[in-house]
């Protein structure tokens, strides 16, 4: 059977990219001209990671991702006829001059766990109950339906709904490289256009 994604890469993205997507998008808001361009850059980041042979050799994930995003943005600049002066200045946000020592694995793991639990705690009521039963308590779909007094059809619907909501919230709420939680600025960058 064809392997579509290497499990090691999925795991790497889960640990080193997803929790920081919100922060990355916040930095991109300073250099991209609109929300669509931020989405394009993010999409390109995922596409490039997908093509990696392996992730074992990446010693500093944060630096790696920032450098990758910076390169994509610079490529984007070459295509744009107008580039804001402030955008070029904001490229500095993607430099990692002083790579902070990676937090102790235990602490990083704990922070990541809290982040995922937070994503679940923000789901609407019935959806949240289903996710807690299925994901935290590891109950089967059948047992979840019985335990919550729902039909399996409803459990399936709430599962899909929850996944969509979680996917959206990952773009908005995440961890900050360095540990504390951050909430990204919604939507558009505040930089005004100016001809260069």
């Amino acid at each position, binding site marked *: 059977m064809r392997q579509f994604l290497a499990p090691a890469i999925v795991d790497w993205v889960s640990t080193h990219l997803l929790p920081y997507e919100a922060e990355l998008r916040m930095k991109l808001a300073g250099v991209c001209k609109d929300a669509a361009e931020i989405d394009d850059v993010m999409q390109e980041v995922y596409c490039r990671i997908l093509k990696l042979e392996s992730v074992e050799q990446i010693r500093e994930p944060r630096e790696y991702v920032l450098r990758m995003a910076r390169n994509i943005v610079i490529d984007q600049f070459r295509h744009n006829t107008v580039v804001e002066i402030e955008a070029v200045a904001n490229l500095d946000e993607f430099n990692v001059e002083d790579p902070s020592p990676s937090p102790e694995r235990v602490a990083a793991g704990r922070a990541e766990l809290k982040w995922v639990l937070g994503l679940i705690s923000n789901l609407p009521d019935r959806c949240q109950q289903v996710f807690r039963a299925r994901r935290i308590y590891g109950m*089967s779909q059948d047992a979840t339906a019985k335990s919550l007094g729902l039909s399996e059809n409803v459990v399936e619907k709430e599962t899909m709904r929850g996944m969509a909501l979680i996917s959206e919230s990952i773009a908005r709420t995440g961890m900050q490289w360095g540990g504390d939680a951050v909430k990204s600025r919604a939507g558009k960058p505040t930089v005004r256009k100016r001809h260069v």
Partner: protein
Amino acid sequence: MSKTETEALEWVVRQSHGAMTPQDEAAFEAWFDAHPSHAGAYLRARAIERSLDKITLEENQRPSPAAVQDGAHALRQHGRRRFIVAGAAAAGVAAVASSALLPRFAGPTVLNTAKGEFRKVPLADNSTVSINGASRVEVRLTREERRIALTRGEAWFEVAKDKSKPFVVQAGGVMVRAVGTAFAVRRYGDGADVVVTEGTVEVWTAQGTAQKRRMTAGEHAYVPDLAASIAVSREPEEIERKLAWREGMLVFRDQALADAAAEFNRYNARAIVINDPRLRDRKFVGQYRIDQPERFADDMHSLLGVPVVVGANTIEIGQRIR
């Protein structure tokens, strides 16, 4: 949310919670290859699934079903929680023990399936286990080894290479060690069936006198707990047939009717009963979706010219002998 993002999430949900038919697999492959943005969105969706998998509590930390209901009731009482930035724990989850936060060195994780249910679960070491219905798998990943106990049912393992940590599956008295590979084990009362789809495994028994035996892709063996020797057959077609459940199918090639009925009954609450003993050994060829025993019964009606009665709890094949 973009259409691609939605599609990617739908595929992930479908793949994790239900068996994919060959048609589904083909549709997925076509979608994945259609555009690079699909593949990227799929990677992100898979990573989300992986993040959610990491928070499942170990079995001994889970409260009883009654407690889960109390939690649900409490939630209904107090209404929606206000938006809270990551870091706040939901009610009832504050008790998550620290060991649940170290997926690399987690204690036993128990994965259960109900009859007819299918689960595909990634493990913390990047291996994947596809669990068939009515099965139970215990996963213990330590610094030195990766140990899996198949206490009931059947599972197919795709093992991530890790020379420093052997991946060993124990099913009753039968042990299977993987050397970077994919293989399935089905537990029976007095032994286990081992099927290798990729790479090489080593098989031995805890209490039998049989020597350790190597098996490679395309081979299968039924290993009794007290085996004096391990007989291995090389039949790649038979391997695919035995593991068709991974795609939600049952494939019969020269199987006896009674065995086919038993296979369906593994998965479905509505049991196939063969009334006429003379029909039990009749052989046939066919492939069916696991959740469609009625189709199978229909075909038997046509093939054998016997009456078939589809009831609420049973599907009876053949006339009752008085």
